[in-house]
């Protein structure tokens, strides 16, 4: 079995993102970029499945400009066998991304496509579900545990009510939640080795996919800020304040 892991290049988790003063976007100039953390968890799980003998190959793929090859190389250094880069300079929205990944599925025939449950830049949480719909295959989103056996995956999902378990037939789309695993650190020799692993480029135009943006983003603004309040001296003072506001 082959596992396909789409990864997205995003502003690093630790960067405090700011809106540009003209409202045209957020500041990304000179900002550290990384693999979307949920995608990194998805990749880690795919690698563990392979290491347990349940998959033969892990392929990472990404859509974007030349820059996203940095993240693909990181994925290769983590242990992916090869990488596919769908090259475009235009930002791609989730439905278009799903259509592109479907094209890659047709070429690669994976048993599992493992994505992150959401990208931490646009926070959409859509691509995996959309891909499963277009592929007409099962989806198990927000996974915190995955057990494979005999052509099926038993997936524990983090839902609002607690933990839901689904059993899905493969091939299927899975998306990772935070507690699925802790991704490994990349070691220097692995980075060197990753440079020699295959990375194929495909021009988006050659895939014949309708990838134009459907939703138009017309403005960015900073969120309303909550101003800090007062530090009180005692529990009694707090109780008095809350009573005065009618909260107790």
């Amino acid at each position: 079995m082959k596992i396909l892991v789409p990864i997205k290049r995003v502003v690093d988790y630790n960067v405090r993102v700011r809106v540009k003063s003209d409202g045209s976007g957020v500041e990304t100039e000179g900002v550290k970029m990384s693999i979307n953390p949920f995608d990194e968890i998805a990749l880690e799980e795919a690698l563990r499945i392979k290491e347990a003998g349940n998959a033969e190959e892990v392929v990472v793929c990404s859509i974007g400009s030349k820059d996203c090859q940095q993240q693909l190389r990181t994925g290769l250094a983590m242990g992916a066998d090869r990488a596919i880069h769908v090259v475009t300079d235009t930002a791609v929205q989730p439905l278009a991304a799903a259509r592109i990944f479907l094209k890659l599925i047709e070429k690669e025939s994976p048993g599992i496509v493992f994505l992150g449950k959401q990208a931490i830049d646009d926070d959409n949480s859509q691509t995996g579900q959309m891909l499963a719909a277009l592929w007409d295959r099962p989806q198990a989103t927000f996974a915190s545990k995955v057990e494979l056996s005999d052509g099926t995956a038993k997936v524990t999902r983090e839902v609002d009510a607690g933990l839901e378990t689904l059993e899905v037939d493969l091939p299927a789309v899975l998306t990772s939640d935070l507690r699925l695993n802790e991704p490994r650190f990349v070691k220097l020799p692995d980075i060197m080795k990753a440079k020699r692993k295959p990375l194929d480029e495909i021009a988006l135009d050659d895939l014949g996919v309708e990838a134009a943006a459907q939703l138009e983003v017309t403005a960015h603004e900073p969120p309303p800020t909550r101003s800090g309040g007062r530090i009180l001296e005692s529990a009694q003072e707090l109780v008095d304040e809350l009573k005065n506001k009618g909260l107790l």
Partner: protein
Amino acid sequence: MARVLIIAQHEDGALNPATAKTLAGAKGLGIADIDIAVFAESGAGVAQQASRLDGVTRVLMIEHADFAHPTAARIAPEIKALADDYSHILGPSTTFGRDLMPRAAALIGVGQVSDVQEVLDSHTFKRPIYAGNAIVTVKAPADQTVVATIRSASYSAAAEGDSACEVETREAAASDPGHTRFVNLETGGGDGPDLQTADRVVSGGRAMGSSEGFDVIYSFAKKLGAAVGASRAAVDAGYVPNELQVGQTGKIIAPELYFAIGISGAIQHLTGIKDAGTIVAINKDAEAPIFEVADYGLVGDLFEIVPELEKLI
């Protein structure tokens, strides 16, 4: 034709409050006809409840044994089958809606607007990105069905009106693809109020130190009649189950009163509470970022302060 369809979320024969919040968001569209679809194994009770919500035109009740534990793979084609009659299809931004709605949108062939926090007009919406560090205005094309999820924390639930609208029974249009099977649902139980909808929430963080340490939180919450929440760190450390997590990747909540106890205030946690009415922070570190957003702060040992508070209220 301008007409709105809301996909109801319900559990154990009762409508989830997120449905009435989705309805509150839908009212901002300026479209008079708003239907609610109830997919259930046995939906009469939920449909009746939905029919009494203020502003609903019609409830569609679609009953089938498959809907006892509805999966996105089973329900999304049902939504697609209804889509031609609607200009807008909305769901809540709960894990139910987040799982289901994008699958339905892709079948219909349109993009989705996730986590709508404000409706500007029938096709223009505001939504948060980057964990709420930026708010974008998004315009959906006028010639396509709009599929969106409504951010529950941004809306108060639409009230129940005096009268009930019509409940229309429909037949299921699709069949079970057979490839996705419900196994079970484990809930942490707990007898307190529901975290997502509670007026008061008490959350504990890493500083609780252990599951036993969290008893301080449970006890205080019980006295207050509050729901219990937790930071990611506390969940990761195994002090409490995952469904208590508040933040970007957990629950986004908007209680009137929020206590952040032993929580430093990472941006991902603050994302989950920024719509709270009043925030109280208790932390031994006076420099903790939580104090930058809290209305009231107490600096000191939470294991002394919280029991004292409990005695005083």
